[in-house]
Every structure is written in structure tokens, then in C-alpha cells.
């Protein structure tokens, strides 16, 4: 895989959804960009000193500060009289867990930043440990499915809901299974001044235990089941990008080792939550509530 932004020769796994997501975002943004990357697979697979896969300016500082380092970049960039698109990008661990303070800080302060969460639902770089982005019942190395405990016990955290609670002008979800939708959202976000957050679903064949040819399958299937809603919240107004067909969740869970242990009652519980969640989402879209103003 080679592009104008990320060259071939990087060491991301076959079927890595995260690097597909990162490449889609950066190709959509163009070359007048500065990337600030959180520690994780995307850093490790691209920049083994003294080599780099990045053809655009790129900075990595630590795991939990991609957003705050990016706020320094963007303010420095403006002092230099430029208007470069500055993007802070990290995984669910880097942005939703350990880096959530930094992320919240830059959104509240209103820096002109693109914030991208490439979500593969666990700490993959360290060997598939649970994060707040890990879905309920998924097995990870720190939430293994055993004879008593069926994987992770808690629901996944919604980073896009946390983002909109900051009153920022643009929040969107996307999946690499729907590239046109993803690219359109990136381009729209780039044209908006202020903080904007993109939460992108990026399957991980190694962490989830599926065949590496199935990345796009899962990236599409999750949207069809309704488990990963595609929507955008522009100036506080929620618009659903795509209605799910509510394909049976079994079609999504099957073939992923992390859900090998899942029982019909678990699937029923998840399914009910998906349906209830969609009801609320559609209610909110229909009501046209200004989510930026919602106190």
C-alpha cells in the first residue's frame, strides 16, 4: 500500500484497518497538513528510526498527549502566519482512555484542530488489552472469556457524545467500510474552523481474531447491524448518514475469536440495546435538538 502521504514499506499487519483509516483521512486532507500521532500501532509501524513512512510533517510525543501537543503545533503554526491543517490522531486507548483529558482540553479551548480517533476497540500495540472502547462481551487479554466471566463486563464508551458535550462545531462517526462517507466527512471537517472530531471504526484482524481478508467485511457489517451508527453532528444538529438494515448481530460476531464464547442471551441483550439506541438517535435527529446548546 503506497500513497502520497504514507509510503509503502511500513510494517502494519495485513488487513490492518487502522492504517487504512489513517491513510484515508490523510489522503483526504492533502499535503498542507501536520500530523500529531499518539503512541500506538500507527507510530510503531511507520517510524523506526532513522526511517519514516510519512511524506508529510509528523510528530509523535507520548501516548496521552497527541491532542495537547497538536494544540501547541496549531498555535505555533498560526504565529508563523500559516493556516496548515493540524490533525491529532490516535487510537481508542490514546484518545478515549489515557489521552481523554488532553482531548477534552483542546475541544474546550476551541483550537482549530482535526481530532481523529481510529478505534479498534482495544490496546492492540501492547497485545490486545481492554480499553474503554472495547465492547461488552469482547474477550481481550485483560478481559478473557472464562468459565465464569464472559469477556468485558461494561458497555463501550461513546467518545462522540463526549465530544459534542464540549459544544464543538463538528463531530462525526465513520467506518473504513464506507470510504466515500468517511472522505466526505473529513473534507467537510477540514473546511470548518475550530475543533472537529472524527470517530472511525477500524477493525483489527490480529486483536479480534478474524481472517485478514475480512477487514472490510466487518467494517461494513457492523454498520449494517446498527451496532456502529454513522452520523454527523454539524453545529449541534444530528444527521444520520446511513440507516442500518439491522442485519442479525450473529453475522457480525461470527468469525471473530473475541466473540467465540458469546451466548444467545448476550446477543439478545446487545441487540435490544442497539434497537433502543437507534430509537433515541432517530428521535434526536427528528426533534432537531441543538446538541451544542444542550446544557
Amino acid at each position, binding site marked *: 500500500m503506497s500513497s502520497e502521504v504514507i509510503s509503502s514499506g511500513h510494517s502494519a499487519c495485513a488487513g490492518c484497518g487502522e492504517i487504512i483509516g489513517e491513510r484515508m483521512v490523510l489522503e483526504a486532507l492533502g499535503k498542507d497538513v501536520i500530523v500529531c500521532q499518539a503512541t500506538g500501532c500507527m507510530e510503531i509501524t511507520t517510524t523506526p528510526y532513522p526511517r519514516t513512512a510519512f511524506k508529510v510533517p509528523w510528530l509523535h510525543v507520548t501516548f496521552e498527549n497527541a491532542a495537547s*501537543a497538536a494544540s*501547541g503545533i496549531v498555535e505555533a503554526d498560526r504565529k508563523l502566519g500559516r493556516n496548515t491543517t493540524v490533525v491529532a490522531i490516535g487510537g481508542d486507548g490514546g484518545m478515549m482512555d489515557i489521552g481523554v483529558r488532553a482531548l477534552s482540553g483542546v475541544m474546550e479551548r476551541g483550537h482549530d484542530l482535526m481530532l481523529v480517533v481510529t478505534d479498534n476497540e482495544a490496546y492492540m500495540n501492547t497485545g490486545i488489552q481492554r480499553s474503554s472502547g472495547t465492547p461488552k462481551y469482547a474477550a481481550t487479554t485483560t478481559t478473557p472469556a472464562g468459565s465464569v466471566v464472559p469477556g468485558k463486563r461494561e458497555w463501550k464508551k461513546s467518545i462522540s457524545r463526549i465530544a459534542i458535550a464540549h459544544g464543538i462545531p463538528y463531530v462525526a462517526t465513520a467506518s473504513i467500510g464506507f470510504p466515500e462517507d468517511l472522505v466526505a466527512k473529513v473534507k467537510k471537517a477540514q473546511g470548518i474552523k475550530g475543533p472537529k472530531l472524527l470517530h472511525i471504526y477500524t477493525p483489527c484482524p490480529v486483536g479480534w481474531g478474524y481472517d485478514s481478508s475480512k477487514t472490510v467485511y466487518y467494517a461494513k457489517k457492523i454498520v449494517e447491524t446498527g451496532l456502529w451508527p454513522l452520523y454527523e453532528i454539524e453545529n449541534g444538529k444530528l444527521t444520520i448518514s446511513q440507516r442500518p438494515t439491522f442485519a442479525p448481530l450473529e453475522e457480525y460476531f461470527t468469525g471473530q475469536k473475541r466473540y467465540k464464547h458469546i451466548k444467545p442471551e448476550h446477543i439478545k441483550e446487545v441487540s435490544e440495546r442497539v434497537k433502543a439506541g437507534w430509537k433515541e438517535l432517530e428521535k434526536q435527529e427528528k426533534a432537531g435538538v441543538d446538541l451544542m446548546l444542550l446544557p
Partner: protein
Amino acid sequence: MVKKIAEGSHAVAEVVRLLNPDVLAMYPITPSTHIPERLSDFESDGELDGTIIRVDSEFSAMSALVGASATGVRTYTATSSQGLALMHEVLFVASAMRLPIVITVVNRALSAPLNIFNDWQDSISERDSGWIQMYGEDSQEVADLMVQAYRIAEDKRVLLPVMVCMDGFFLSHTYDVIDVPEDLKGFVPPYKPEHAYLDPKRPQTQGAWAMQEPYFELRKELEEAVGAALPVIKEVHDEFAKVFGRSYGGGAIDVYGEGDTVVVSMGSVCTNLKVLADRLGFQVVRVRCYRPFPAEDVKKALEGKKAVAVFEKDVAYGTGHGALYNDVRACTTGKAVNFIVGLGGLDVPINALEKMCGEIDAMNDGETRWQR
């Protein structure tokens, strides 16, 4: 030059304004808070060119400065105690990435127990971070160190971050007559990096990871760079003395008085030690530049002396001494003793210092006494 009666923190803020950093990060923590407050006053009155980022934590303060400095601009922040400790992880990144960030550390004790008063445990605990560390004796020197710090940090032979340390409350919250320069543009020219900047016209990758061999080499290079900063620190000190008419010994250490016994310390406690040096006939060696440690200068100063006593407001836990003692110990084979004083802001009155100085002769080599 304008002579002003100014609070130590305000003198620092005034000099920072003149040094014109492009990006400033701010997060309040006692006793450093008066510096960002005064800089905010400047901003509100249209007297500050730089952009202030009012960050969510000290961790984000240092992170934002790494981002800004890596982009190629001049940066500043001030902090104390827990704030510096929270920056710890990023401090090592800043030095290894050779980013000339300058910060003021208003020295304060570290928790626990929580304590807001002055000692040096915060900055001493960062002595191995690859940063240059300078300690001022009074607010005038701290203000002058700020000026010198940017020249040193941004010098192409150095390119390292610098922390300028001032005793919390004793200096930060007290008023003194201070000479504030009117213009610093001549002495500290604008920062134009050639080694590290983020520019879409010439893409750079900064902050790559490294396997064992390059990692080892880069870390060795960092140590060499910190050591190589010492002559530049002295050179900048001497040039500053010529331009502004204020000199602080040789730049790395400040030797005061004459005597067979030498008292070594840092910061504001040295003012009282100097008074006692005149009264009791000993010599004071004030360490101004703690990292890089000016071992050759200290060795020379201690040559042929009867005894050396190190007074310090920090503990190198597990060694039975303070950190400064351990550094000084390595510079002499003669008798060396250690006084741990002023932890958590415990007052170090001149009569207590006098009593301690009177105990030196009767102490055994390597002995540590804790002043209460």
C-alpha cells in the same frame, strides 16, 4: 535599564514578555501562579505578542510546548512541585528531541504530605531528565537567568531545554529592587531553528522510535550535549555581564569569601551563608548551574580545603544525603559533610545556619545532619 521595586514573579513575567515567546502554556500551581497571572495581565492590555494556551494540566502544558517548539517557535511556561512532576514524562522527550524550551520552576516541596512551601525536591528530582538546570540566588539573578536561558537553549552548540529555578515564596512572592532591561532583542535574537521544525514545505518526522543501537547512541549524544553546554553557559554569562553590567561569578559557580572551610549550596539560602562567610571566615561556593554539573570548577574550588559542608533543601532518598552533596562528594577526597535544611519550607534563619556552620569541625566525614 529601569530600576523597579518588583515582586520576583512579576520581574520574571516582565522579562518573559520582553523575550517574546510565541507560544506560552499556563496552568496554575502555587507558588508559580503569579507569573502566568502577570503575563495574562500583559495579554489583556495588549502588551504580549505571544499566544497563551490555558491548558488542562501541566502535562498538557509541556506537551503543547513540545508541539509548538517542534513546529519551530519560542515557548515558555512556569510551574512548581506536582506540576513539574506531572510533566516528568514529557521532560525527557523535550530534551532528547533537542527542543530549546525554557521554563521557570518556582521551587516547592513534593507531596506527601501536601505542602506548598519551598524546597528543591521538585527540580532536583528532574536532574537526570537531560535539561539544563540553573538556580538563582535572588530575583534579579532569576530574571537575568531567564534572559541567559533562551540564549543558551537556542544556541546551535546546545539546543537543549532549560529550567530556571527560583525559591518559592522566598523569591517568587517577595519584593526587591530589580533592574529590568528595556529591550532584549539585541541580546536574544529571534529563534530560527535549522534542526527541528514542522513545515509542510519540507516534511520532517519528529519523535520516531528507535531500536537498541540507535537508542543507545542517541542517549549518549544527549549526555554529551548536556556536558558541552557548560562552556556556552559561561560564555553567555560573561557576555551578559558585559552588556548589562551584572556578573555572577564564573557563570557555573559563584565563589564568595575566603577560608579553609567551604560551604556549598544553591539558591536564596546563599545570601545568609555569604553574610556568615564574612563573619566566620569561610568560603561559599554557590552552584548556579546544577545540570550540567560543573565538576571541574567545584574540584578546583575545593582543592586543598580543610572541609566542605553542603547545605541543601532536598533528599536523594536511600543515599543518606542530599543530591547536591552526592555531586560535590565526587569532587573531593577531603572531608565532606551534609546539612539537609528547609524541607517543606521550614525556616532556615541565619542563627540556625550559624549554629550549623559551628558544627562542621566536629562532624565526621560523610555525616548528614537534618536541621529542624
